[in-house]
């Protein structure tokens, strides 16, 4: 047994960082001066996360030393909620799943913090940014470490809050504020599902409280709940489906699955490190973590698992298609994230939960890399985010180019050499060999085939992005005639819901602000001008043909290099070799085929042999699957090279009217976002609002007014008695007193004696 008390430090360090940043940050900056102060504050922001990573690594090593079947330690800090017989302590669990996520969160988190110290160096609200980032890390750690659903819910809401705060970091821009609202509200829908799932579990367990072995009331703690749930749900598959679907709604919201995915692309309004940290590496994987944690529920509901797999597949393909229509580099990556999250859910759906987690880890590496790389590009291009202005950047920013190329190769799944290959291969193999999930009565093997198609699409759009950015013979911003011709259009375009970094932010002030905020809900024009005067955006540049992109500073490319290293095949091979990762998460215990569940210190695990089945059996051997993968990858590469190898094709130029129909359609998310907005927010909202208003005005107000009228009438009667003469009142008081006394005397002492 190692010193697991250290886990509290892992939790406390980001909180301490948060407190330092929030309470002392401005003071530190003021104390050390503008330049050094930011460096000191930034260091103080990075250090706690890095220290937490070191501690987490140490704890993981301790955990590895333990026998595989006892790798689960529950630590309790204090009693949090105690209601009647239910007690919910503030407790954490240290097991392979939580420690994997701790390492990912703190490791990638510290790299991104480091990157952000460089990226945000010119920001005025520097410490506010790190306040939010540290708080986010703390919330995420609570989410992954929590040993009961309530604690997980704290983290769940905490990351939602931090996401909201960070998306709206430049809150003076109405578009950013709206994006933040969108993210928050959409997440609420998912949270609603999660809460309902939680309540369903509580209600279900509450009616079967006698099944709990001990009566210490920790009904919601995983180590108590999951074994009971396993035995109960095997008898009630219908309830398993209900709970699983409700939980999956929560996962959909947080992990941006199909109906609720549309907040994630908008979330690109936040600073790029945020996009990398939250919207690629950590927060969006919360759904996958939750499904892994609660997999026992999904285990007993093939139908719900089937739904998960199908939704995941659909999301993967749908987002991949949308990515073709995007011109904003960050948006391409955002949709790619949505798509990759779909892959992870397919893995969870078909029962290969470990594969989902595996993809979470590798995806965290290469997607963080890609996002940070895109940040570097944006930084180099003076906050220009439109890929159509890029081109030939390999000449100017070699380090970024090299690292981003690694990320690109990882995501398209170059066999054996890069990380993405291993996890994607595992998912597709599991999907093809599925014998767990059923959808509409049939097996969901077809998801595997569709994912192969998705792999081709992924390759194509990622290659498109890479070629448009780094390829080409000449930078397109250097072609003056193009620039001039498209300038007006570019700006008009930028004003319409195109959420960019700093650069765009200034655009909105100059052009779109007054139209977008007709009610002056956020700021009036005068206020905006005052704020602008106080805080000029000195770093906003229009790109001129003479502009030379500069390589990013050390603090920014070091994280890139580290992430590039992680994204190569070495780490993934190490993890996949001899099923190491799978056995780490779900240690083999030699169970029979079938459900293949057993409890290891209260946490149910699946026998890997039982569920991963024989994926390659279908195709004969493993190499066949690899061959297929290579084939689809080559198809994607060929297509992208053909179209984008030389230059930006005309039909993706600056003249939107000449775009291909499909691309326009894809750019607008196939009308989904507009449809949802129209249905739910504008038309639907208006209808419901009108109905509510009518109800309120007619019925509710009627009742209220009726009471008023009645009271008025009664009061009019009673008013007659109020003469205003104090002595009159005193007389009445005296009369009453005498009457009362007479009554008391006669009642209590049997009359006046």
């Amino acid at each position, binding site marked *: 047994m190692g010193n697991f008390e250290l886990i509290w430090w892992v939790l406390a360090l980001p909180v301490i960082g948060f407190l330092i940043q929030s309470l002392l940050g401005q003071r530190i900056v003021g104390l050390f001066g503008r330049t050094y102060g930011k460096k000191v504050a930034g260091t103080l922001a990075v250090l706690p996360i890095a220290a937490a990573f070191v501690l987490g690594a140490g704890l993981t090593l301790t955990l590895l030393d333990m026998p595989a079947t006892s790798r689960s330690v529950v630590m309790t800090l204090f009693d949090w909620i105690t209601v009647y017989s239910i007690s919910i302590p503030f407790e954490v669990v240290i097991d392979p799943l939580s420690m994997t996520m701790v390492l990912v969160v703190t490791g990638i988190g510290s790299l991104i913090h480091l990157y952000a110290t460089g990226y945000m160096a010119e920001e005025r609200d520097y410490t506010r940014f790190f306040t939010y980032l540290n708080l986010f890390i703390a919330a995420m750690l609570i989410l992954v470490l929590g040993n009961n659903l309530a604690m997980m819910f704290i983290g769940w809401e905490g990351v939602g809050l931090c996401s909201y705060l960070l998306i709206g970091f430049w809150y003076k821009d109405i578009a950013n504020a709206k994006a933040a609202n969108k993210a928050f509200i959409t997440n609420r829908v998912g949270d609603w599902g999660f809460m309902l799932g939680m309540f369903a579990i509580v209600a279900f367990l509450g009616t079967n409280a006698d099944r709990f072995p001990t009566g210490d009331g920790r009904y919601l703690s995983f180590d108590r709940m999951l074994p009971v749930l396993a035995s109960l749900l095997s008898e009630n598959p219908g309830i398993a489906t209900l709970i699983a679907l409700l939980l999956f709604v929560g996962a959909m919201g947080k992990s941006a699955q199909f109906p609720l995915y549309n907040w994630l692309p908008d979330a690109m309004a936040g600073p790029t490190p945020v996009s990398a940290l939250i919207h690629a590496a950590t927060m969006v994987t919360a759904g996958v973590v939750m499904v892994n944690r609660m997999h026992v529920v999904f285990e007993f509901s093939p139908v719900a698992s089937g739904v998960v797999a199908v939704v995941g597949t659909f999301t993967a393909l749908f987002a991949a298609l949308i990515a073709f229509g995007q011109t904003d580099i960050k948006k391409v990556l955002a949709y790619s994230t949505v798509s990759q999250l779909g892959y992870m859910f397919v893995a969870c759906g078909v029962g290969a939960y470990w594969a989902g987690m595996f993809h979470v880890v590798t995806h965290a590496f290469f997607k963080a890399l890609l996002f940070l790389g895109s940040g570097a590009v944006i930084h180099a291009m003076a906050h220009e985010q439109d890929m159509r202005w890029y081109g030939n950047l390999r000449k100017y920013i070699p380090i970024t180019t090299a690292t981003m190329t690694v990320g690109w190769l990882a995501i398209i799944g170059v066999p054996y050499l890069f990380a993405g290959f291993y996890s994607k291969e595992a998912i597709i193999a599991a999907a093809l060999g599925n014998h767990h999930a059923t959808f509409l009565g049939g097996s969901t093997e077809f998801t595997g085939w569709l994912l192969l198609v998705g792999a081709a699409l992924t390759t194509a759009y990622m290659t498109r992005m890479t070629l448009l950015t780094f390829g080409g013979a000449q930078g397109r911003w250097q072609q003056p005639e193009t620039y001039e011709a498209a300038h007006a259009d570019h700006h008009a375009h930028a004003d319409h819901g195109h959420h960019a970094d700093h650069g765009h932010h200034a655009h909105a002030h100059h052009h779109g602000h007054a139209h977008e905020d007709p009610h002056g809900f956020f700021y009036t024009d005068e206020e905006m001008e005052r704020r602008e005067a106080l805080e000029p955006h000195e770093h906003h540049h229009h790109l001129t043909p003479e502009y030379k992109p500069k390589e990013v500073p050390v603090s920014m490319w070091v994280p890139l290099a580290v992430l590039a290293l992680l994204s190569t095949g070495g780490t993934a091979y190490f993890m996949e070799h001899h099923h190491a990762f799978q056995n780490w998460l779900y240690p083999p215990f030699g169970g029979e085929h079938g459900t293949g569940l057993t409890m290891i210190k209260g946490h149910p695990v699946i026998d890997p042999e039982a569920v991963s089945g024989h994926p390659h059996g279908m195709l004969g051997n493993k190499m066949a699957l690899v061959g297929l993968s290579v084939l689809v990858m080559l198809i994607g590469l060929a297509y992208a090279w053909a179209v984008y190898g030389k230059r930006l094709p005309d039909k993706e130029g600056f003249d939107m009217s000449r775009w291909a129909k499909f691309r326009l359609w894809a750019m607008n998310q196939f009308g989904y976002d507009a449809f949802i907005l129209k249905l739910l927010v504008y038309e639907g909202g208006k209808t419901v609002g009108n109905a509510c208003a009518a109800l309120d005005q007619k019925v509710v107000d009627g009742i209220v007014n009726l009471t008023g009228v009645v009271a008025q009438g009664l009061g009019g009667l009673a008013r007659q008695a109020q003469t205003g003469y104090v002595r009159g009142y005193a007389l009445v008081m005296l009369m009453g007193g005498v009457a009362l006394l007479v009554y008391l005397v006669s009642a209590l*002492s049997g009359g006046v004696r």
Partner: protein
Amino acid sequence: MTVFMVLSTIAILAALGVVLFSSPVRSALCLVFNFFTLAFIYFGLKTELLGITQIVVYTGAIMVLFLFVIMLLNLGGPQTWKERFEFRTVLGFGFGFALAAVIASQVFANFQYFDKPQAPDSFGSPQALGRVLFTHYVWPFEIASILLLIGIVGSIMLAKRKL
């Protein structure tokens, strides 16, 4: 017994004077007499501290305040008000008597035979009172002090023309 009869007669006469004198200054003076005699009746009940407190608080402070206000507003003097005859006055007297009669019936019925003091003679000494006041009744005591503070602030707020 005789002392008590004398004192209580003075007290009742003074109380009647409070109500019957038309000049408020004379009413106040009668009230002072009443309170002063009451203090001596308290001494007779062996509650020395409360008797002296009665003098300090009522005659020494409250009644001075009354006189002060009466004189400040110049209410006494020549233009004392004639009480209008009203039906209400008759009713008031009637019910006053009724009240007295009802209570008296109970007093004479039930308390006629309590003629032996039960409490120890020292129960009104400063030591005994202080000990209880600062132990068992310390919270009411503190609350009363806060009430007085609020009273002070309130009267200043009311009386000041301009704050």
